[in-house]
């Protein structure tokens, strides 16, 4: 019974293609995230949705478009892929982070994207 599941786990694609990564959580959380981990292992937040509403949009190229059809799903679509997009993309979820609450973030297993 996977808590946060994302597909595909591995994705190799050519430059210029469009691809999507899907994510689902069964933890009943109201907030979902996309993080990017680069080759130096630095984990950086990209987007955050709370109850299907975008609340965080870090400085990410607009080729990246998240979509949340409901609070249990957050998909990431990437247009016109570039070599620099190669990274591991992690989906995550939590209850809403408010002030001092400090809710735990649960991560998926990651999607390894390689652009050639």
């Amino acid at each position, binding site marked *: 019974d996977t808590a946060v599941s994302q597909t595909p786990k591995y994705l190799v694609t050519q430059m210029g293609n469009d691809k999507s990564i899907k994510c689902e959580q069964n933890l009943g959380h109201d907030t979902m995230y996309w993080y990017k981990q680069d080759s130096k292992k630095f*984990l950086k*937040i990209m987007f*955050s949705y709370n109850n299907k509403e975008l609340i*965080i949009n870090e400085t990410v190229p607009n080729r990246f478009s998240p979509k949340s059809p409901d609070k249990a799903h957050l998909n990431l679509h990437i247009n016109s892929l570039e070599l620099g997009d190669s990274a591991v993309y992690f989906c995550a979820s939590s209850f809403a*982070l408010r*002030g001092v609450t*400090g809710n*735990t*973030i649960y991560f998926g297993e990651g999607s390894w994207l390689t652009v050639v």
Partner: protein
Amino acid sequence: SQKIEQNSEALNIQEGKTATLTCNYTNYSPAYLQWYRQDPGRGPVFLLLIRENEKEKRKERLKVTFDTTLKQSLFHITASQPADSATYLCALPGSSASKIIFGSGTRLSIRP
């Protein structure tokens, strides 16, 4: 701007010793701090949370301290085992409190 530094990229210690990892932050005062473990090829997994009014937190062989004056957290693993080998990430709430920001991690290797 907010900055989180884990000042050891890698740490190698002998099995049975205590591993101590450091997390320093600047330019803000977080209400809490978290530690996560990440194994190769896996997503980070939550280990411990410590709040600003707590000096120390323990969980089995893990101990975390939080010094808001020094702006530093120490993460200790006592009686370390090879199975403790992983990357450990500290994480703090961002200025907006609606996101968690991660440090770059320390790769810990425990040799038998």
